């Protein structure tokens, strides 16, 4: 018995640094959310600042930016959701390749952009889409069109934002589905071939049902990030010309919080954002569970 307890003690020593990390850097900020309901004054700290109830939330809901940032966030979120099937389709297609050399080549190439930083990707967008020197505008002018200032236009912001994300992440996102496809029992395919199923029918009736649980799990996890919409990238792509289209909740939190030092107000907006994400996650997970698909819990 005593030996068992010493051993537990030993395991806890292993755990301790990580537990401290989570307590301080993860649960610490959660505890700090209370400033969303207070008027945070740096001298008084989290605890001593006076309570103000829901007033920061109400101020946000009534502010003129509210409609704009919510709309932008939702529209980008929906675009991203629409493009969610692309990595799935990629995985199914890559899986059809018979030459393993070519398959590896395609994988190596399509994963590569994932390793490029956001700063570089957005920098490349500026290079390619520049109105005077960019390659795309040279092509447009070559065909007799007028050059377009893509990154300085509100209409183009969202398509460029999501399409460049597809370029960067579609290949990498396919890995997990490729793993799921590799896990499908070959006998299922053999049986389907014996029954005279075509390639398309096998994709439809063997591959897709086989990876559906993985797809559902990924979808649930995505929904838990729905409102975050690649904010670090939106921030990099944002400029005064496209702000009407590029201001999302998180960039607004950054500006009002860290640039204008309205800590409590922006903490309230941030809390609202996390809460919506969390509720979406719970709802989608519940639906998945109801329909007897895979679910997180």
């Amino acid at each position, binding site marked *: 018995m005593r030996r068992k307890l010493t*051993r*537990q003690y*030993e*395991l*806890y020593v*292993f*755990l301790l*640094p*990580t*537990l401290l*990390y*989570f307590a301080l850097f*993860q*649960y*610490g*900020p*959660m505890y*700090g*959310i209370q*400033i969303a309901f207070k008027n945070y004054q740096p001298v008084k*700290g*989290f605890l001593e600042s006076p309570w103000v109830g829901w007033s920061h939330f109400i101020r946000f809901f009534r502010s003129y930016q509210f409609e704009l940032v919510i709309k932008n966030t939702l529209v980008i979120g929906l675009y991203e959701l629409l493009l969610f099937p692309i990595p799935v389709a990629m995985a199914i297609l890559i899986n059809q390749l018979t030459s393993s050399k070519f398959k590896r*080549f395609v994988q190596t*190439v*399509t994963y*590569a*952009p994932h*390793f*490029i*930083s956001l*700063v*570089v990707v*957005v*920098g490349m967008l500026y*290079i*390619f889409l*520049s109105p*005077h*020197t960019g*390659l795309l505008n*040279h092509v447009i002018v070559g065909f007799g069109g007028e050059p377009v200032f893509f990154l300085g236009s509100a209409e183009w912001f969202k398509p460029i934002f999501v399409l460049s994300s597809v370029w960067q992440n579609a*290949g990498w996102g396919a890995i*997990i589905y490729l793993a799921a496809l590799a896990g499908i029992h070959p006998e299922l395919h053999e049986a389907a071939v014996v029954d005279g199923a075509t390639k398309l029918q096998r994709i439809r009736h063997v591959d897709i049902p086989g990876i559906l649980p*993985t797809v559902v799990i990924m979808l649930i*996890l995505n929904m*838990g990030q729905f409102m975050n919409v690649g904010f*670090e990238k939106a921030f*990099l792509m944002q*400029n005064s010309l496209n702000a009407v289209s590029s201001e999302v909740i*998180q960039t607004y*939190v*950054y500006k009002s*919080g860290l640039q204008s030092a309205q*800590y409590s107000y*922006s*903490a309230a907006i*941030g*809390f609202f954002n996390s809460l919506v994400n*969390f509720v979406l996650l719970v709802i989608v997970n519940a639906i998945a569970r109801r329909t007897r698909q895979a679910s*997180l819990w």
Partner: protein
Amino acid sequence: MLIFVLVTLIVLYPLYFILIGAFSDPNLVSRGEVWLYPKGLNFDGFERIFSNGYIWTGYRNTIVYAALGTAISVALTITAAYALARKDLIGRNVIMFAITFTMFFSGGLIPTYLLVRELGMVNTMWALVLLPAVSVYQLIIARTFIQATIPEELFEAASIDGCNHTTFFFRMVLPLSQAIIAVIVLFNVVFHWNSYFPALIYLRDRELQPLQLVLREILIQSQSSDMSGGYFEDTAEQQKLAESIKYGMVIVASLPMLVLYPFLQKYFVKGVMIGSIKG
């Protein structure tokens, strides 16, 4: 088949274009005459990049943050993963729940910033290396890996001979976990190499800036403010070279990752695969 030729072209062409653009005469590039192969071979952009002090400082800072941050992450993740892999750990489920919960809900940007400020870590590298120290995802894959490769009975057997957890961890677990350690090292190095946002928030001094912030200034902010930020003086030359420098910067900043990654690809893929078994 055709579709894959198309897909690989779409993925590769932008990278190829930057590469040939960096080595070409900037005048020809900006007129759109360079698109298939380099023209008017020119290394001025690279010369300017390599003679710029901020870029080297950025490089050095990034290497320091990546090395230290990765070392801390690996140490915390593997030790915790070993403890959490033991089914006899008291309170295991509660701890797992508390950790996993942070994946789905967090305090958010502002409370985190205020906490870091109260801890006195603003404008120090500790904000950058400690804040992302443990990733829940990496902790879960490490735990899954250890559970799958090191049966608990192995420890029971060793403990009869008087072996304790610490000795077992260093003699058995670490050597057997090399594959997962490689995965975690790589994920963290890539993360630190490419991240810019924490540095933007927490660092003030130019001397502390990592490469990605220097890049941001050259690649993105220069678009609106015309590179007058003092990185490259001499205005007449600068206009001509500005584009060339951008192409070169993309290469200088991305090449280490892009060259290393094909060799290490299997480890990255392995990481994602283990994660998919028990997401």
